[in-house]
């Protein structure tokens, strides 16, 4: 690839210091790789190799201990996500960088359709417009319409995961971090989800993903980055 990367990770290390035990627990050591727009990069490696930690460090849920995470923003600036101030990170999260984990965390009582549309409400979209967009996504992900008005806390694992994905992609992020987005889905819904991920990628999003299934990596990834235990 000749174009400059969307994300360039240089010598990223993360460890946790547990004060109670006075112990340092390493999680990722000296990791370097790149993520390009319109491509899906997969992180692979054994359990405990730090795959999820790297995603969280990029999203700044974890504070990186060493290294740089250079992100090329929509405004054309290069931002080091490892050291950028909190307001910059929050602004990028609301506009440019999405993160979808295996677990849905949502406001209690909130209807599924509003959970999905919530990133749009944050941007000032009206309830009607937000719901229309969210509805279209939910339809494509085969969430039955009679569930849209209910809180996802009562949904099955697979339904919740699709709600989570829909919320993560509704804002069309430039960079999308996916942590096992199909972990509890059956074959058919996995197909739906993969199709949407591919579509988002073709529209320009750079994706960094962890898949539990090696077949999916083979099928989806344009580039693979292998991690070993630190």
């Amino acid at each position, binding site marked *: 690839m000749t174009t400059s990367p969307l994300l360039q990770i240089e010598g990223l290390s993360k460890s*946790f*210091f*547990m*004060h*109670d035990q006075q112990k340092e627990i390493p999680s990722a050591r000296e990791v370097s790789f790149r993520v390009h727009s319109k491509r899906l990069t997969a992180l692979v490696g054994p359990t405990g190799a730090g795959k999820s930690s790297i995603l*969280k460090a990029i*999203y*700044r*849920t*974890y*504070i990186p201990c060493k290294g740089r995470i250079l992100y090329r923003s929509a405004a054309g600036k290069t931002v080091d996500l490892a050291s950028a101030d*909190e*307001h910059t*990170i*929050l*602004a990028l999260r609301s506009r440019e960088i999405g993160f979808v984990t295996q677990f849905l*965390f949502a*406001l*209690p*009582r*909130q209807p599924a359709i509003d959970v999905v549309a919530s990133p749009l*409400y*944050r941007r*000032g979209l009206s309830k009607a417009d937000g719901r229309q967009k969210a509805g279209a996504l939910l339809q494509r992900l085969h969430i039955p319409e009679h569930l849209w008005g209910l809180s996802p806390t009562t949904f099955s694992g697979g339904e919740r995961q699709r709600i989570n994905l829909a919320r993560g992609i509704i804002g069309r992020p430039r960079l999308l971090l996916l942590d096992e987005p199909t972990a509890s889905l059956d074959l058919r819904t996995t197909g739906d989800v993969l199709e949407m991920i591919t579509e988002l990628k073709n529209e320009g999003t750079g994706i960094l993903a962890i898949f539990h299934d090696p077949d999916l990596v083979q099928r989806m990834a344009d580039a693979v980055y292998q991690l070993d235990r630190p």
Partner: protein
Amino acid sequence: MMRKVLDVKGLSKVYGKGCPYCRDATGPRFDTNICPHCASVVAVHDISFTLYEGEILGVMGESGSGKSTVVKCLYFDETVDGGTAHFFDNHGQYNLFDLFSLNAAQRRWLRYRRFGMVYQNPHMGLNLGISAGGNIAERLLMNDMLIYADIRKRASELLQRTEVPENRMDDLPGHFSGGMQQRVQIAKALATNPPLLFLDEVTTGLDVSVQASILDLIIEIQDQLKTTMIVVTHDLGVIRLLAGRTIVMKNGCIIEAGLTDQILEDPQHAYTQRLVASAL
């Protein structure tokens, strides 16, 4: 560009006569906020933070950590012993208020018009001797809304928004349930569309369904009105749902500050690690 709303620097508050050693002999290092020399309580020591428009800042910590005192100082319920706080008001013309050097009339003006406060105990924020609508009217009257029909209309709008049945508007809030009192208090605080709202343990002690409805309401207010808020709570769930950034207090000091998900998932300070580990 993000606009600053509040800039607090070195805020300190001591209960008691105080002595020259108070500040060096208390804090997380000594695990106390009581001065061993003069027995004064250093409730808040050297607190600094900046708030930007539309953001919700969480203030977390155990009882006695000083978190409520911070908002009480900013809302002028308490006097301060040190530090500055600047409020940037964008209403009409651009105004800058140096909060701790204002006179009583200026403080009152800010309290009635530009700030809103919701207390843990609704009895603090409501006048229980007058109706729910009357409570809201009180705040509107201070804002030069003097026509009866206008006041009634606005009060009913606010109660509707906070899901208080309209037919209870003329009842005394003393006859309401705790959750409903809390919603009336929020309606009252919102009456003047204040750009800055302080919420002090607003869901503490309410049952979970009422808690959920109040959290819903707060998120909706933030989405629609872009109100800047400080949310004081010891409930990590509330912090996680509401606040983008969080500060953690202990013995009157800030021991850690950061993005809320980072504080909860990658806490750096020993105390925060223990707090998070015992809650989740």
